[in-house]
C-alpha cells in the first residue's frame, strides 16, 4: 500500500502512523520497535529538510516480497536531491564533550534495518529500507 501526503509540514506523526498501521507490518513488538524508529528517522528527515518551508509531498509505502519474508518501506519526495547515505557515520568513540548533537537519525536506520538504499529517479529522491520479518 502507498499514499501521497501533501503538504507534509507538521505531518510526521500522521505519515509514521500510516506506515505502522500497514497490513504488511509484523506483529512482533521488538521488530515493530526497530521499524518505527527507522521510519520515524527517515520520515522526519524528509519532512524537516526536503522542501523549503515544508511545502511539498511525500509518498510513503510498504510492500512484502512474494514469500512474505521481507518488508520494504519506500519513501519518495520531489525535494532537494539528497542522498542521506553519503552522510558520514557519527564517531562513536568521542566523549560527551566532543560528540556532535545530530547525525544520528540515518545511522540508526542503517543499524535497525537489514538494508537501506537511495536513488534519484525522475526528479525524485527515493529511499528504500528492507527488513526480514520472519
Amino acid at each position: 500500500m502507498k499514499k501521497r501526503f501533501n503538504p507534509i509540514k507538521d505531518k510526521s506523526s500522521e505519515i509514521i502512523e500510516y506506515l505502522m498501521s500497514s497490513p504488511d507490518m509484523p506483529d512482533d513488538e521488538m521488530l515493530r520497535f526497530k521499524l518505527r524508529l527507522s521510519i520515524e528517522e527517515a520520515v522526519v528527515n524528509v519532512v524537516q529538510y526536503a522542501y523549503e518551508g515544508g511545502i511539498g509531498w511525500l509518498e510513503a509505502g510498504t510492500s512484502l516480497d512474494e514469500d512474505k519474508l521481507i518488508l520494504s518501506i519506500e519513501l519518495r519526495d520531489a525535494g532537494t536531491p539528497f542522498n542521506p547515505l553519503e552522510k558520514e557515520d557519527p564517531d562513536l568513540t568521542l566523549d560527551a564533550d566532543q560528540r556532535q548533537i545530530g547525525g544520528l537519525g540515518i545511522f540508526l536506520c542503517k543499524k535497525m534495518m537489514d538494508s537501506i538504499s537511495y536513488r534519484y529517479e525522475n526528479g525524485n529522491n527515493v529511499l528504500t529500507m528492507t527488513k526480514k520479518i520472519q
Partner: protein
Amino acid sequence: MDTIITNEGTKTMVKLKGRLDTTNADQFQHDIQPLMECKDPDIDVDCCDMEYTSSQGLRLFLTLQKSVMSHGGKLVLRNMKPQVKEVFDITGFSNIITIV
C-alpha cells in the same frame, strides 16, 4: 511522554513515561530545562516506563549530559527497557551517559 520531576534532599528524581519522539521532543526539552539550570545537579532518571526514544530524544539526553558535566554534577539513567537500551548502545551513548 510524561516527565515528572521531584526533589529528594539534594537529589533530583525524574520519572519518564511513554514515548519520546518527534511529536513531543520540544515538550521534553521544555520539561527538562530546569535540570539544566541546577547549580550542583545530582539527577537520577527512572526510565522503567520509557517505551521508546528516537534520535531527537537522544540529542536531548546528550544536551542534558553536557550541561550536567559543565556544572560538575551527576546524571544517572536507570531501569531502561532492553530495546531502549539498545538505541543508547548502538549510538555509543551508553559510553558517555551513565546507565545502570
